[in-house]
């Protein structure tokens, strides 16, 4: 009984808002009021701080790096145009391929695991318990400090031999020796560090979960759906726009991992190139070998790859992301 009234009340409210929107003159679109030149100028004037910043600090350097990507610029000598030599050299460079591989593993494994962890915690925190606010703050805390240099240093200390992880392993009789010096274990260590900072996607998931109408879940429960079924059939589809948003953000973020790898490997990408992330190799080429042309070429390959992957994600999203009010 109460359910139906709320439902009715809500749809009435929505209808009202929708009505207001359609009747607003701005949405009519039939006759645009002619904008005066003065208005346009004022508009650009107000935009100018952002525009200046964009042109001078983003677009300008980007264009310059596009030019440098086709030169042999080494910081000391004037750049000489060398065509696509940098790009062909890239794909013959075993360390470049290694860095692409390291980054791919990090993205393909790290992002799903992190999102799963974030979603799981968000679901737990969405339930009604006493002291939920405190729990939310606690689970978010690692993300506040996670990207900092100090945490990377602590992380290294935790996984070094005789560190905490090593002592726990020894307690359970597992082979010990520390993760930091073992090329096979540094990637799990880096992924754990990323997963541990699940706070940002978790908060977004939590907000998404709050948006799911309780009556949908209740109706499914009345129809006999168990908790798992309710999660898969109701919660996940309702959450898919949020999931998509998080997936996109985390994927792009994972491609750019740098500082934690820099600190954990002591600025080398080691041991044995096991933490040689793409951006890190780019940095090494540009700022320790001074091969700015080569590094610029790498930057543009990364822009292209991230762009393509984003486009693919958008394309596939049509199949699995449901927006409220979508007509299919």
């Amino acid at each position, binding site marked *: 009984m109460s359910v139906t009234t709320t439902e009715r009340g809500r749809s009435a409210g929505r209808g009202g808002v929708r009505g207001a929107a359609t009747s607003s003159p701005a949405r009519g679109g039939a006759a645009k009021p002619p904008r005066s030149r003065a208005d346009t100028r004022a508009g650009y004037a107000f935009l100018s701080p952002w525009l200046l910043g964009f042109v001078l*600090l983003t677009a300008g350097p980007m264009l310059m790096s596009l030019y440098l990507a086709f030169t042999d610029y080494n910081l*000391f000598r004037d750049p000489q145009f060398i065509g696509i030599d940098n790009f062909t050299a890239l794909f013959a460079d075993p360390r470049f391929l290694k860095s692409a591989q390291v980054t791919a593993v990090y993205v393909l494994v790290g992002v799903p695991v992190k999102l799963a962890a974030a979603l799981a915690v968000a679901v737990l925190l969405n339930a009604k318990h006493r002291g939920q606010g405190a729990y939310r703050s606690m689970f978010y805390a690692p993300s506040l400090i996670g990207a900092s240099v100090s945490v990377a240093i602590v992380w290294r200390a935790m996984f070094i031999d005789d560190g905490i992880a090593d002592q726990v392993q020894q307690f359970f009789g597992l082979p010990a020796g520390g993760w930091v010096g073992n090329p096979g274990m540094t990637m799990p260590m880096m992924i754990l560090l990323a997963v541990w900072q699940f706070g940002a996607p978790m908060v977004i998931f939590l907000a998404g979960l709050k948006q799911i109408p309780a009556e949908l879940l209740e109706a499914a429960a009345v129809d006999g759906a168990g908790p798992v079924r309710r999660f898969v059939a109701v919660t996940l589809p309702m959450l898919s726009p949020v999931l998509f948003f998080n997936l996109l953000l985390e994927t792009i973020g994972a491609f750019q991992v740098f500082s934690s790898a820099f600190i954990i490997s002591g600025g080398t990408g080691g041991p044995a190139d096991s933490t040689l992330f793409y951006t890190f190799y780019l940095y090494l080429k540009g700022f320790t070998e001074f091969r700015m042309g080569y590094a610029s070429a790498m930057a543009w390959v990364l822009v292209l790859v991230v762009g393509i992957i984003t486009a693919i994600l958008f394309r596939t999203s049509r199949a699995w992301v449901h927006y409220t009010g979508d007509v299919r």
Partner: protein
Amino acid sequence: MVRTRTKTAGKIVALTAASALVLSACGGGGTASTEAAPVATDRDIELSLVWWGDDDRASRYEEAVALFEEKHPNIDVQTQFQAWDDYWTARSTEAAGQTLPDVLQMDLAYINQYASNNQLLDLSNQVGVNLETGDFDEAVLASGSVDGGQYGIPTSTNTLGMVHNDDLLDEVGIDPPKEGLTWDEYDAWLREVSEAGADSDPQIYGGTDYTGALWMFIQWLVQQGRTAFAEDGTPAFEKADLVAWAERTQPLRDDGVFFPVERSKQVEPLTGLQVNQAATELVWDNMMAGYAAGAGTENLDLLPLPTGPEGSAQFWKPSMLLSSSATTQEPDAAATLIDFLVNDPEVGKIFGTSKGVPAVPAQKDAMEIDDGSIDDKIVTYEDEMADRVTEDTPLPVEGYGVVEAEFKRLGEELAYGNITPEEFADQWFQSAESTLGGE
């Protein structure tokens, strides 16, 4: 979403932004070749001075600078320091923007690159005016010259040696290595120690893997009467030499004789000797002071390097140099500061052997050294080495810093067993071909 993407792209190129910003300032770079005149005393002069190193070195520099400012009240010295890696990143960016500091600490690995790109001041015409070089050993002073110009003044010297920790050797009951042993004898000795130390807790090893040190390879070539680099800056050795070098030590790696690389990566920046697990290490002699502090014992000593079948020749290497920027507005004052730092006896007292043994005798004699101390051992070692040092310093070529780092990295890959000695040689030559022999 679109906004996020734009931001992402922005972040990606942020790394290259620096290069773009400085590019406009690029292009000049002619060496300032004004006549040298005695440094002015009638006007205020400001100099910048940068070095790499730790806090300990910083406080020594500050002390020396305070003394300099006392003697030259019109000169104000602004100081700055970074750790090794950051230091070169900062300098290369400054070089691109033509804003190198007036006086900078320089390393043999980079002097060629900076000098041949017209970044450094030729100090030749300051000699005898603001800068005295009469007390230098000629070969040592020559290490700061490139194409006939004096682009750096060495502050101190060192030479390679074998540090051994007698506390550890006592523990495993093996005598220290004997002077004059050959490389093969050294390898056999390493094996003996590692076998004896297998049951110690923590395990004790004979030494650390020295294959990935390019200087050690060069030293090995020098003992055979060869040089490492040709006039044009390309390697003067063959792939086969590099394969032979890596294969020499392969059995030791295969049998786990060396201090394991997994451990050494974890104790960085310390080394096996500093964590009391490796009984010997082949290093520059001035590093023994830091080693003694790390290992917590004074019971260390130095021996010459193992000898090859063709001899035991070693060479001096300036542990660091001082250079001045080609764009300095105050070449006279810069030369005066360099002169003070390399010649003044008080400065020698302040630094001790922390930068190596001072190149100038006046500084060396001014050091206050206790008999039997680590400093004393280092100075004694260099005195004794004087007749073994028969070769000139093999001067690093342009791009040396890069190929040295690659040599070290591949040495690690070798230690992890990821590559074979042949691949070690192949991959290093691949990197050397794209780095060395530029204009």
